[in-house]
């Protein structure tokens, strides 16, 4: 792993168009500002890893499990819908 030292307000460039800047350092926390093209996915690592784990679990299912869950669903009452509001009566 490449390791670089940076001070407050200093930044690094990654490839074409990605800039990571040290915006604040306080109480053992570093705040980063990131400029990147819109199509670059930026995620906190732990959120990426949780999603990856969850996606792998989803991919391991087979159709019979879905059929069983569907049967279970049919026994469950419909979820509560948020209270519906009626529009005001139109003036003639």
């Amino acid at each position, binding site marked *: 792993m490449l390791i670089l030292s940076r001070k407050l307000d200093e930044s690094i460039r990654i490839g074409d168009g990605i800039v990571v800047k040290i915006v604040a350092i306080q109480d053992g926390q570093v705040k980063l500002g990131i400029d990147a093209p819109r199509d670059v996915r930026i995620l906190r690592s732990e959120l990426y890893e949780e*999603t990856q784990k*969850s996606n792998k679990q*989803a991919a391991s299912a087979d159709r019979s*499990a879905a059929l069983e869950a*569907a049967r279970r*669903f049919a026994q469950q009452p419909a979820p509560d819908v948020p209270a519906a509001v009626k529009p005001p009566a139109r003036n003639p």
Partner: protein
Amino acid sequence: MKWTNRQFGELEYEPRHEIVFPDGLIGFERNTRFLLVNDDSAKPFLWLVSLEDSDLCFPLIDPQMVRPGYAVTGAGPNATVLNLVALRTPVEDSTVNLRSPVVIGKDPQVGRQLVLDSEQFSFRQPLFSAAAVKG
């Protein structure tokens, strides 16, 4: 066009059915082409079936079935929002990932998996409500 998937056998589809995920799903970045399969026998579940790996498919559900009023900011009014389901044994232990929705746009059909900032959405929301499981 035809594609064979491990769960569903031979599927027939037209080019307009294909959904491109430019970044893939998280952890599955190499798979970018999918079909959405509506399995009538297992409603309310849908499947996202890879057009590149015959073994790969993900069960999904309309989040309104689990969390009425669920909305993803920035998804766009015409986008379809679905959430991946982890089906477990026993089935009551199954969960839905409300934190990482799949958003599919129209014209062209482009899909993305987001990860929401808000901690009010769980990575493992129980699929069935506690009351229903007890009953």
